């Protein structure tokens, strides 16, 4: 599924990476725990998280994760956006809970990592 479609079905706001919305996502991982995220080895991954700090982006950079949706109405900070842009990471913000966001994406055919 393309990021553009994900933004539509989640009613999400794209914060950075507006030119990369044709990017394809095949699997989703949902966690607020960055140590968990660092164990994931998947390509074309979307990370759902409610953790809003610079380490969310650093962890994504290290894990080669290029797509993030912030759930629970969390907002990306300016330093997160700057680092995400530097690493060509797309950040979206959505007002739904982690559970609801996961459910919608699962219903629309996106696979879990495990």
């Amino acid at each position, binding site marked *: 599924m393309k990021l553009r479609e994900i933004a539509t079905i989640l009613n999400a706001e794209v914060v950075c990476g507006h030119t990369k919305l044709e990017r394809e996502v095949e699997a989703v991982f949902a966690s607020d725990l960055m*140590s*968990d995220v660092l164990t994931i080895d998947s390509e074309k991954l979307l990370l759902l998280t409610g*953790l809003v700090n*610079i*380490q*969310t982006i*650093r962890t994504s950079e*290290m894990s*080669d994760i290029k797509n993030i949706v912030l759930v629970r109405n969390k907002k990306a900070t300016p330093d997160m956006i700057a680092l995400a842009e530097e690493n060509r990471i797309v950040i979206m913000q959505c007002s739904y809970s982690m559970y609801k966001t996961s459910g919608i994406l699962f219903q629309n055919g996106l696979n879990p990592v495990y």
Partner: protein
Amino acid sequence: MRFEYNIESGNFTKAGDASSSFKKILKQLNVDPQIIKRIVVSMYEGEVNIVAHANGGKVICDVDTSRVQIKLVDVGPGIPDIEKAMQAGYSTASAKVREMGFGAGMGLQNIKNNADNLIISSKVGVGTTLEIIVNLPKAG
């Protein structure tokens, strides 16, 4: 080739800067992306550990044609029981560290999983040293 980075204690804004810099170097050296990921994930976990638990330290990265060796040396409380620290879920992390998304007792195990070799030495009240080795495939 050797690259050295200083790590500040408690500065979570900068945690990961060293791993990020080294990742850029590994890309320039055309190291396989899957191997880069293993190297930088283990280095980043170690870097976060220094920020979270120690009074500062440094990371020394040595790259040759056969392997990458990352030595993380900190000055700090040390690890009284390394075997216990290696157990998944065991953590002495502060609330501040947990707020940053770490401190679940998974870091050392994750480093071990990504490394071809991991050597931990520690002295209580002095500090901890981690040596991470990731082998590089033979060229050609």
